[in-house]
């Protein structure tokens, strides 16, 4: 086996033979991922030199990381922007539209009250539907902005999407806690 020709500077889309985009062929990603996993599986380098073994492990972890990013719509969108030189995660930029942050706080307050509500599951479902809807909106917005090369707009949409995604994760853990207590 050989790992010649593998480059760690290959972007994730290229790695799986995909076009960089918000929407991808999920089946094609799966197929290409499995093929690369087989190709660089460390077991296949068992007879190789220490360098080759180490390289196989590094490639495998690079491929896994790439798959995780591309398989998640939000991470994929942020990665699309990163490829175009836009950082969505800049920790020193905390300015978000005030009305958006108001909505965040209201949603957080709603989530906070759910555990003491009389019909917690129903309320949770309502909030989660709302969160899903908002995430879909920001996904479309990101797609539209990218299509018209509006990188600032795409960045703003991804940042909002990240907040909604995070809230949905919180909602999921509330659901898990409810399940534990019932």
């Amino acid at each position, binding site marked *: 086996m050989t790992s010649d020709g593998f480059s760690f500077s290959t972007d994730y889309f290229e790695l799986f033979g995909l076009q960089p985009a918000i929407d991808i062929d999920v089946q094609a990603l799966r197929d290409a991922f499995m093929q690369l996993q087989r190709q660089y599986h460390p077991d296949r380098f068992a007879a190789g030199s220490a360098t080759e073994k180490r390289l196989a492990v590094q490639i495998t972890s690079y491929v896994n990381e790439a798959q995780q990013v591309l398989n998640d719509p939000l991470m994929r969108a942020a990665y699309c922007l990163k490829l175009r030189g836009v950082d969505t995660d800049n920790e*020193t930029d905390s*300015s*978000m539209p005030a009305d958006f942050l108001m909505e*965040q706080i209201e949603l*957080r307050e709603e989530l906070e009250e759910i555990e003491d509500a009389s019909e917690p599951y129903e309320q949770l479902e309502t909030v989660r539907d709302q969160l899903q809807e908002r995430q879909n909106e920001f996904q479309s917005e990101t797609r539209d902005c990218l299509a018209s090369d509006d990188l600032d707009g795409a960045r703003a949409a991804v940042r909002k999407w990240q907040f909604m995604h*995070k809230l949905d994760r*919180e909602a999921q853990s509330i659901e898990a806690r409810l399940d534990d207590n019932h």
Partner: protein
Amino acid sequence: MAYSDKVIDHYENPRNVGKMDAKDKNVGTGMVGAPACGDVMRLQIKVDDAGVIEDAKFKTYGCGSAIASSSLVTEWVKGKTLEEAAAIKNMEIAEELALPPVKIHCSVLAEDAIAAAIEDLREKRGEKTESAA
């Protein structure tokens, strides 16, 4: 991750949690958020006629370090003028709370929140805001 005693103290006994009337002309509201962790912070200050901060409230949805940073800032700004409050730097917060490097951004959030609250108040009072960030 191990939190410092001061972070734990502020987290378990947050000071000045609450809300003030955002429409009050003597109340400035600052809201900021960090997309990477999903933290949201609302910080409000109330000034007296002399322009001295007489009260401060906050509500933070986030990790312990973010809550502690905003709690600490509400304590620090009381009794300060807007100029003095605006001079608070995130590294002072981070040092006081002994925040580890990965949590420094929580103190940045608190600094940004107080800056936003001061700006909101100055706009309300018809004062010119500094253009420099």
